[in-house]
């Protein structure tokens, strides 16, 4: 294990929230560490191509422009120690343990900001463990970063409107999309957006991006279908098709797009109070008006406090940065309030839009029905029938984990926990807090945890 490194502030996550916090904290002479699993900052929304690549016309859509400006400001800051390719494996008040290419390092910091982002909700359906079946965000990240099309005929299926943008990006990159299938009826999606036209209008660039995506798909002749539910994904050694309620679809890659859940392992391990994150499931950090969690010295911003998109993440990150400056005595309460006015307003506005999107994308009644032998816990190969038996016997998530190993594998239950909690919720009222978060948040070898000889 490497030496202890000291910083004033440790920011977990180099996406919009982490960047905005760092920008808000700049100019005070603080030492700031920003830790991220990716080699370069940007987060998933601006997953940068490798430094060795030169990419013309990278993410040129209008909705990316303000985020690219923020990223440029962040990259120009001095006093930032960028710890890319580092995975946070543990957090407690005052310290962060992270694993990098050379092993484990411990960072002490007076203030910690958790801005670890979100992940695709993993949705089990028969055949989803076949190679070629991806979380839709994974397909998009290959496009943005590695400049790779995962298949020659991609099927996107789910309930989240983001799949329209991903489909359009595939088409713009020269790929073919077999279809974009929304499981919900068209009325459910459009109805949610027109219920609050003002909140929708304020985010016109995003809606225009969606309209632009629809035009791109129409030109390419890509079917966009509603009420189209996948029933099974098929293939031998890799996916070659989908069985849906509207017939069979041939494809060589599938992106599942049912929504997003916060990366919650780190705040849960730190003991922060959590709340249900939204209709897609998962857990979000409870926070005060200055983005402080229930654990002193640990703040949270971005998707960690509820998935609301990159603009909300940037606003929340600014607020968290201002609050840390306030708590460190670098600015007074009046100055903090003044500085917070704009990000507070932005946060409210973007959250209103996110609530619309949540309603439009709500997967609750539209999940595929797993078969008995459909694997729910991918790491430990626990199938639906096994879990059905446990759930009907009244087990809690933790008890079922012990009995079946569901959630005990390499991913630490990130993929299967929402599925299991949905199954438990179907049996009746009562809320299950999910799996107890345990160190380490990411796999680490015991050798890396031992002190150097």
């Amino acid at each position, binding site marked *: 294990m490497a030496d202890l490194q000291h910083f004033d502030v440790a920011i977990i996550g180099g996406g919009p929230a982490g960047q905005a916090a760092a920008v808000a904290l700049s100019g005070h002479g603080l030492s700031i560490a920003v830790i991220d699993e990716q080699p370069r900052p940007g987060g998933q929304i601006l997953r940068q191509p490798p430094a060795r690549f030169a990419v013309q016309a990278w993410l040129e859509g209008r909705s990316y422009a303000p985020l690219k400006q923020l990223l440029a400001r962040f990259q120009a800051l001095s006093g930032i120690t960028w710890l890319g390719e580092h995975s946070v494996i543990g957090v407690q008040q005052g310290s962060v343990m992270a694993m990098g290419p050379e092993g484990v390092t411990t960072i002490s910091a007076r203030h910690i900001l958790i801005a670890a982002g979100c992940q695709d909700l993993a949705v089990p359906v028969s055949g989803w463990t076949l190679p070629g079946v991806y979380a839709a965000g994974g397909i998009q990240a290959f496009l943005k970063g590695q400049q*790779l099309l995962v298949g020659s005929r991609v099927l996107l299926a789910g309930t989240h409107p983001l799949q329209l943008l991903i489909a359009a990006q595939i088409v713009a990159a020269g790929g073919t999309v077999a279809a974009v299938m929304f499981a919900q009826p068209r009325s459910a999606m459009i109805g949610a957006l027109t219920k609050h036209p003002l909140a929708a209008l304020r985010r016109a660039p995003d809606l225009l991006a969606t309209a632009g995506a629809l035009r791109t798909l129409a030109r390419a002749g890509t079917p966009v279908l509603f009420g189209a539910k996948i029933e099974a994904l098929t293939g031998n050694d890799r996916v070659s098709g989908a069985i849906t309620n509207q017939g069979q679809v041939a494809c060589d890659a599938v992106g599942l797009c049912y929504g997003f859940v916060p990366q919650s392992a780190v705040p849960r391990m730190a003991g922060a109070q959590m709340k249900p994150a939204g209709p897609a499931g998962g857990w979000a950090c409870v926070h005060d008006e200055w983005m402080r969690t229930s654990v002193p010295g640990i703040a949270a911003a971005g998707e960690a406090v509820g998935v609301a998109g990159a603009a909300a993440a940037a606003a929340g990150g600014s607020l968290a940065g201002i609050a840390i400056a306030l708590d460190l005595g670098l600015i007074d309460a009046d100055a903090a309030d003044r500085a917070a006015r704009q990000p507070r307003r932005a946060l409210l506005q973007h959250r209103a839009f996110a609530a619309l999107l949540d309603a439009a994308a709500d997967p609750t009644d539209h999940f595929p029905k797993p078969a008995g032998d459909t694997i729910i816990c991918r790491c430990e190969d626990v199938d639906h029938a096994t879990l059905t038996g446990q759930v009907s016997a009244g087990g809690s998530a933790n008890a079922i984990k012990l009995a079946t190993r569901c959630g005990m594998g390499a991913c630490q239950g990130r993929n299967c926990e929402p599925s299991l909690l949905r199954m438990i919720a179907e049996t009746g009222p009562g809320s299950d807090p999910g799996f107890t978060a345990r160190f380490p948040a990411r796999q680490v070898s015991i050798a890396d945890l031992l002190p150097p000889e």
Partner: protein
Amino acid sequence: MSADRIIHGVVRGEPITIIVDGEPLACFAGETVAAAMLAAGVDAFRSDRRGKPRGLFCNMGSCYECQVTLVASGRRVRACLTQAVDAMEVVTRG
């Protein structure tokens, strides 16, 4: 079936070779091991207990489906987060 590199408007790093399960695999500096494997048509990263091949799922370090072993260090790493380096040797069976 393999994944396709986007060529138009993209300049990659210099050509390199990694070795996956003993087979040389041509790729480019800057690519992740996962991207290099997928572009070469290698989409099985492990087998599950039923003996069925498993592919990469999330491409962001969360799902652990793309774990491979670096032969030189013995480390288990996520291929989607690991940059390919010339002559790097990787095995997919843990």
